């Protein structure tokens, strides 16, 4: 069994600050991490390795710096790692990213399960999983909470949405997107870390390697474009009362609620 797990390196958004004057992101000094939902997906893949001896292949797209998360995946137990890195991939939106990933995944046939995180914490789109599935003409299950593999080549997948959960039966090959909050990823092992840096190699694939029409890749292959970005403007502040007693404070609130017809 071969499981392909897609990973994205992202800035840790909890560490991001906004330049108060320019309204732009200050990215300096912000650590890059393996996207949390993707890490949960990797855990699900590694559990398939533990139980069924699956080969776990991790796949990422990005600058050479992204080899860091592939080595991290090796240290957690992944067997093979590929980084799509080429200026032709740069500036890709979700569709162009999916074109590249789908091209690489086709090169990795035969595969059984493709696992991604539900969404990345920098873009928060949750689109690359379903778009890649469509380009590969494979079924998808998104918002996956848990997975049970059956020897007959089907999976029982629990999909969790707002007001209900579904238990779904799906034939492999299939694309799954995993909910980070439902899975606790394992730590890297010491032996794994040593192996990741001493023995294992990250394969670097350029655009030529994946047999995809270059007009569907990178900025050129992206239907959407960022017109502008700006720091979030907070709503104008009202009145904050310091140095009032509890009774005075309560009265101030009551008056405001009466004034706004909220009672």
């Amino acid at each position, binding site marked *: 069994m071969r499981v392909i797990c897609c990973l994205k390196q992202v800035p840790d958004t909890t560490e991001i600050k906004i330049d108060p004057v320019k309204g732009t992101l200050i990215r300096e000094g912000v650590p890059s991490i393996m996207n949390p939902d993707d890490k949960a997906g990797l855990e699900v893949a590694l559990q398939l390795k533990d139980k069924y001896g699956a080969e776990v292949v991790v796949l990422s797209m990005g600058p050479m710096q992204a080899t860091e998360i592939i080595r991290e995946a090796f240290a957690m137990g992944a067997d093979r790692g590929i980084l799509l890195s080429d200026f032709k991939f740069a500036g890709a939106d979700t569709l162009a990213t999916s074109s590249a990933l789908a091209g690489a995944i086709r090169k990795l046939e035969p595969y059984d399960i493709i696992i991604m995180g539900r969404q990345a914490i920098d873009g928060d789109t949750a689109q690359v999983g379903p778009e890649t599935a469509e380009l590969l003409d494979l*079924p998808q299950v*998104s918002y996956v909470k848990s997975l049970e593999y059956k020897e007959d080549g089907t999976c029982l997948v629990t999909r969790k*949405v*707002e007001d209900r959960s579904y238990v779904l*039966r799906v034939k492999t090959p299939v694309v799954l997107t995993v909910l980070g909050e439902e899975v606790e990823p394992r730590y890297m092992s010491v032996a794994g870390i040593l192996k990741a840096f001493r023995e294992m190699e990250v394969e670097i694939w350029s655009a030529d390697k994946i047999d995809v029409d270059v007009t569907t890749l990178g900025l050129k292959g992206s239907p*959407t474009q960022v017109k502008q970005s700006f720091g979030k403007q907070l709503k104008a502040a009202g009145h*904050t009362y310091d140095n009032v007693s*509890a009774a005075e404070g*309560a009265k101030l609130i009551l008056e405001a609620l009466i004034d706004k017809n909220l009672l």
Partner: protein
Amino acid sequence: MELSAYKNVYVIAETRDGKVQDVSYQLLGKGREIADKTHSSLHVILAGYNIKNAAQDLIAHGADEVIVIDSRDLQEYLTEPYVQAVYSVVEERKPNIILVGATSIGRDLAPRLSARLRTGLTADCTKLEVEEDGSLFMTRPAFGGNLMATIISPNHRPQMSTVRPGVMKKLEADSQRKGTVTNVTFQLDRPKSLVEIVKVIRKVQSSDRIEDAKILVSVGRGICQETYPLAVELAKVLNGTISGSRASVDCGTIEQARQVGQTGKTVRPNLYIALGVSGAIQHLAGMEESDFIVAINKDRYAPIFKVADVGIVGDIKQVVPALIEEIKKYKQ
């Protein structure tokens, strides 16, 4: 691509158990505005099972045409059958704009549909603006709500967007509005439908879903076991509902379904009372659209005060009981 061949605004309605979800009415409100500005018409694709009866109500809320795809194969949401149903209409009609609710259903269906159409999709938009020529400017938060980005699709049509629930406003129903209902038959391509439902586990629906509440009393890190009953009592006298920040979920004060913010739900009640909520940007992203915000916090520098209409720097244990008394007195 000949852009001018693509016309009109299409909303993909979301149904669950035969009931059209509120987000679809919100999209109609925005869709109406876009259609009027671009001198075009507003259409709804209503797919599901036993949903025909909802068509008139969608017209009353702004639709010019409701395209009904009613089939037993669409009883519960499954990706492939729904994408097939919607795709068949979209391929024929060639919309300029398609709006989908950014729910777990919409965010599963829309990217699959956009990829099938080889067009762009902008996720989880909180603001949509249109030019008279029909170009759509789609604004959405990114980087955990730290940054807003405006996205365009200059050379591809349809222009597709999923829209965050609770952000757009629905129109008042007008039963005099006229519109047409078109029935479309649906033939499922079964060999392509490789996912089957084994079981559906419905969560018990509580009557107090925070996304529907008009008044929310929201608790944060500053509310502990000792003070939580005060928040519950305040909610009771206001006929409000309890919600909270991620911190209050992490420490077990409230359940995850009540979480407001980037990783929880977006709410826009008439009144939002934040008790001991510091106001991290991820939290503000989920509530700052509330009509009126009251904050009580002992930390005068808490960011929640930047969005509060009325802020009181003070101790929850003293201010909240006093407020409860004032409200009770007033209501008598």
